[in-house]
């Protein structure tokens, strides 16, 4: 299935979860400082392993940066 992760199109196997997507990314901070939204809804960290992605899902993975 095709999903969009931070604006880029990706092919993922069926059953891919938010947790598996995040685990496959580089430079992921451990512990705090990272959050994920799927389709404009925040997915709490505890639900990453059991949140399966669907075809066409839009995933945003954000971290802290300098600003404001």
């Amino acid at each position, binding site marked *: 299935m095709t999903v969009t992760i*931070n*604006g880029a199109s990706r092919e993922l196997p069926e059953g891919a979860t938010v947790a598996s997507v995040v685990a496959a*990314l*580089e*430079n*992921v*901070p451990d512990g*705090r*400082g*990272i*959050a*994920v*939204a799927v389709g*404009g*809804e*925040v997915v*709490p*960290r505890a639900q990453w392993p059991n949140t399966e992605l669907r075809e066409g899902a839009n995933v*945003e*993975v*954000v*971290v*802290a*940066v*300098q*600003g*404001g």
Partner: protein
Amino acid sequence: MKQFVIAGRELKSRLILGTGGFTNHEVLAGALTASGAELCTVALRRLDPAARGSILDVLDQAGVEVLPNTAGCYTARDAIITAQLAREAFQTDWIKLEVIGDDRTLLPDAVELVAAAEALVDDGFVVLPYTTDDPILARRLEDVGCAAVMPLGSPIGSGMGIRNPYNISILVERAGVPVILDAGVGTASDAAFAIELGCDAVLCASAISRAHDPSAMARAISLAVEAGWLARGAGRIPRRRYAEASTPDEGLPIFDNASQ
């Protein structure tokens, strides 16, 4: 004099540091220490595989707490989602709410701002909105439950200081929540002026981060905030159109040849 308390939490420093614009984490760390700030803003952006080091490590090391913001949001919807992401990422209910109207002025969009503020307060957030210097809008934000208001002195990053001190002083006079001057500070005197006008605190980013020597400017602005606070408590003299002699006329010698 009254303490600086937001949502029941007392803050010792009346300077909040914005972390935008620092050239690297070392410069930021130096400025954090020099500023004495207890709170500093961070933004959320897409994970960058090439980024080196986390800003959170820098803040942890300096013992400074995170105030996440919604910088870059143009709609209430985006600001609300960003605030929720920030709560998840940083485990804090505090949010500096920014909803801007366009990318040239970066001025707040009042309509979207109030809508976002109301929704976030209902969702349990401690909302600190970046707003214009309009006292009525500040009151509307207070009415929907914001924990403080953060009026601009002038546009973000402009360094133009406080363009409408009358509005800021009216806003302060009528506010029932802390007022934090946000945006526009160009140098130390602007920060002192903000506090003298009655603001409880100052948030400063560009004036420090883009100064030639950010650590020195952080210290200067920190001292200015303190100086403004002391001066406000001390009470300024009234302004007069004409001079008022500080030396008495009584006992003034007369150098008149005729009286010899």
